[in-house]
């Protein structure tokens, strides 16, 4: 995959982790800018206009959440959180603040790179969604509301199409359950997670080769869902 020399701002106070990230990202031909404090990060983000931010939440001078909010206030740049905070409440807080994805420390290199790629792809596409999704041998055309699989015609309900649409708009990244509910069911059914679960189970039954071990529609327990299409898991 060709990289147009994407520029990534790494906001991280630990020098050895910054070192690892630099080696890792440069090996993938990204340009890396580093910031070790929240104040420095704000300056770098404003002056260099990076294509992606990798943010650690625990910074010496301020909380990373504030950096996310500051940047999000003026820019739609993708933000991936890289943090040792493992409790869901903390993850959700980061996602609510405007982060696009969340990777916990300790992280594995392939996982981090996959998230970074997915986030950059979203910007490349802008808000247009990829109209045709491939699930192994199955294809779903969101624009036409058509699904084909192997030999059979596949039937998805309008609700299922809309869920897929929402997931596809942020393909590769976490979409929280609440976001899905808001976008698909509307604000009135905000807490009807039961309907959401049933819908996703049905979607998996229809699209996944082995629904009990989903490959494409992955659950992030306690957070939401992630659509993984067009890349190897």
């Amino acid at each position: 995959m060709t990289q147009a020399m994407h520029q990534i701002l790494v906001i991280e106070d630990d020098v050895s982790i910054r070192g690892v990230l630099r080696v890792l990202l440069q090996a993938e031909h990204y340009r890396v800018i580093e910031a070790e404090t929240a104040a420095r990060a704000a300056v770098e983000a404003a002056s260099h206009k990076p294509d992606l931010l990798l943010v650690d939440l625990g910074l010496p001078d301020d909380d990373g959440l504030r950096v996310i909010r500051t940047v999000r206030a003026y820019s739609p740049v993708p933000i991936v959180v890289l943090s040792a905070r493992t409790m869901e409440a903390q993850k959700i807080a980061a996602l609510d603040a405007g982060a696009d994805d969340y990777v916990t420390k300790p992280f594995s290199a392939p996982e981090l790179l996959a998230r970074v790629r997915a986030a950059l792809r979203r910007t490349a596409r802008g808000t247009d969604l990829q109209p045709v999704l491939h699930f192994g041998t199955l294809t779903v055309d969101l624009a036409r509301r058509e699904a084909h699989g192997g030999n059979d015609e596949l039937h998805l309900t309008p609700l299922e199409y809309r869920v897929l649409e929402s997931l596809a708009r942020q393909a590769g990244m976490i979409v929280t359950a609440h976001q899905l509910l808001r976008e698909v069911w509307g604000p009135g059914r905000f807490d009807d997670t039961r309907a959401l679960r049933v819908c996703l189970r049905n979607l998996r039954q229809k699209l996944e080769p082995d629904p009990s071990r989903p490959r494409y529609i992955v659950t992030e327990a306690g957070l939401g869902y992630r659509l993984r299409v067009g890349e190897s898991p």
Partner: protein
Amino acid sequence: MSEARPDPDQLLATVKAEEARARRGKLRIFFGASAGVGKTYSMLEAARNMRASGLDIVVGYVEPHGRVETERLLEGLEQLPTVAVNYRGTLRREFNLDAGLQRHPAILIVDELAHSNFIEGDPPPRHAKRWQDIEELLGQGINVWTTVNVQHLESLNDLVAQITGVRQRETIPDRIFDEADEIELIDLPPDDLLTRLKAGKVYVPEQVATAIERFFRKSNLIALRELALRRVADRVDAAARASALTDRTSRAWLARDRVLVAIGPDAQAEQVVRAGKRIADGLDAQWTVVYVETPDLLRLSTAERNRRIDLLRLAESLGAETVTLDGPSAAQALLEYARTRNATRLVIGAPKRRGLRAWLRPSTTIAVVRKARGFDVITIGPTEETRRAEGSATAPEPAVPLQLRRYAWALATTLVCTAVAFAMYPYFEPANIVMAYVLGSTIAGIRFGRGPAIVAAVANVCAFDFCFVPPRFTFSVADFQYLVTFIVMLVVTLVIANLMASVRQQTRVAGARQRRTALLYAMSRELAATRGVSSMARVAVRHVAEVFDCKAVVLLPDENGRLRYPREAPLDGSFTKADLSIAQWVVDHGKRAGLDSDTLPAAPALYVPLSDESQRLGVLAVLPENRRRVQLPEQRHLLETFAGQLGLAMERARLAEQAEAALVAAETESLRNTLLASISHDLRTPLAVIAGASSTLAEHAHDLDEEARTALARSIETKARDMSELVSNVLDLMRFEAGQIVLRRDWETLDDLVGSALARVADRLATHRVDLDLPADLPPLHVDANLVVQTFVNLLDNVGKYTPAATPVRIAARAEDDVVRVTVDDEGPGLPRAERARLFDKFQRGQDEGTVVGAGLGLAICRAIVRAHGGDIVASDRPGGGARFQFTLPTRAPP
């Protein structure tokens, strides 16, 4: 008996007494035979010497009696301000206890140990007696010098009264004198004293002013002097013995005497108690004052019952143990008790009944003397004074209001009997007609009590005589045989009426006792079922308020030992305006105070300690609606028993808490050790790999081929992930134990959760086959998704660790009422049978420490998670081999 061995109990008591003494201030008493020997003078002189040598000695109170010499000695000594007390319109100077406590000098001089404070004065004193003030000073570690005369000693009170004919009202308990650290006898020959008296140098207290001639007779003074000298000699003797006691090489310890002092409700009892004290002291024996509560005695008036309580208190203040026995016969109960306690002597008042009465109903003393075996009985003859008191004491029993209605009914029985007798007359002999009357009298005796029965009996005799004895309708009697009939009829009726009255009385007494026991039992039972000291306090308040018709509160000390009001909302019967300073005094001293007690008797409420001062459990404060409810001696005793019961229950609760805390501490300790051992092993192993592999890569990267480098890097990655798992497990468990984990429940589907878990353990279970049996129609679960996934991850992780590669794992689920039951089966070696019960405890592993990494926290976390969801997890053998874990997850939101 030939063994030279001190009594261990006594040694212990000595040690305890010494410990207590080390903290207490020292008491020095300037002791004299009578007023005017120069006690105050000597004391002040000694004080001046002390002062000159630079000691912090302060005069708290000295009665100068307007004597110039005393005034002069006071000059140059620091004096505390006195407090002016308004007593019945006159102002009196009084010792200021609070000033003394606040000044806290090394030595404080407080004259006149036997002085009584003005209880009804304004402001009211804290204690009724000065010796109580001094006790408090000593308790605070202040050394006190004071003066007292021999006639003020409680146990010598009778003797002095007999010698001089003047009774001292102001007495001090012998205990105070005996426990004083130093006694300085101020001796003055009687002739010199009389000279001083004539010269007007002796102050005479008001109450003896009238009897001054009688009191200051030379013979009296000689006797008093002898008494004082002997008392001091006794003390020296006791001190010698005490030192022998602590000296282990002392000579053979004699078998100890035990003196029982039996008292009744009569006026002689006080004298018997004092005599008992002297006898016990003479023998250096332990002594017990026994009061037997027989049904007869329960019929006594309030004043007499009060006297009984006072007597027991007097005995306690003289150092006796007091016991109240129950029993139908005083003699029987006494003998029984004497036998069980191995008494060697029994002291009892001399019999008072004489002549026929004594023959008909032998007094307790006679009965005891007749049956005494194995101990001596000492009888104490009455003094003139008590004999006089006896005469006056028995006379005024408050008259029971005549119950006219009962008398009317009694007379009505006579009318009915007469009517029946008229009906019988034509057919029956007079002998049988009499029976109708006897029956009537009996009924009157049963129904209407003693008095009406007597009236009925007399009326019946008259009616029978008048109506049926020839000559009829006159009171004259022709045949003298009928006189026998009359007498027998009268006697029978009286006997029956008496018996019935006595039965009724006993029933009433038994009823009262049963009621008392029932009330106590009710509270004890509820206390036993109550946990926590403050809940116990609430239970007690409820019971006490109900039983005594009062407002009550239990005040408990906080961490600093200061009493405070309970934080909970007050109950209906709560007493909300208790005086905390009185309560604090009560808990500090372990003595009751307030309403009608020795200390602050003018207070509206009564404060009873729950235990003695060493435990300081708390105070029960009671504000009675009706003072009589707590003034009656039995009621007050019952209240104290309630407080005692509560104290015991709270003490028990406290001990249980302490035991539990100790257990928890021990477990925590052993847990910490296991944790350290386990974590250090489980962290060191991967660290060794990481350090080894990474240093190899750093040093020899160019020597290695691509494959070897990758293998080393992979091993670093794997071990780092193991450590990460371990650390997050430890953190999770700590959060669970700290109660920091709050479930974030939502609706989830089980296949979703299992899918997540499988994705997370994919690399660790790569070699195993996972079979899923999750029905499509499983209801959604209402759970914390992340935690349930963690449960599956931990269980599957164990499968990866403990079962051989290529064995299958099966995850199955079935819907039940409100839950889904999940089963995870493997076909590995199964569970170690011996450790199955502890499998879910922390730091348990399937195999001994060594090959497998993981601190044995996984299953503990699983259990914590499942339990937090209201389910449980069990481990068993899978039929056909392997292990089976089963747990439930809720499908319904908790209400």
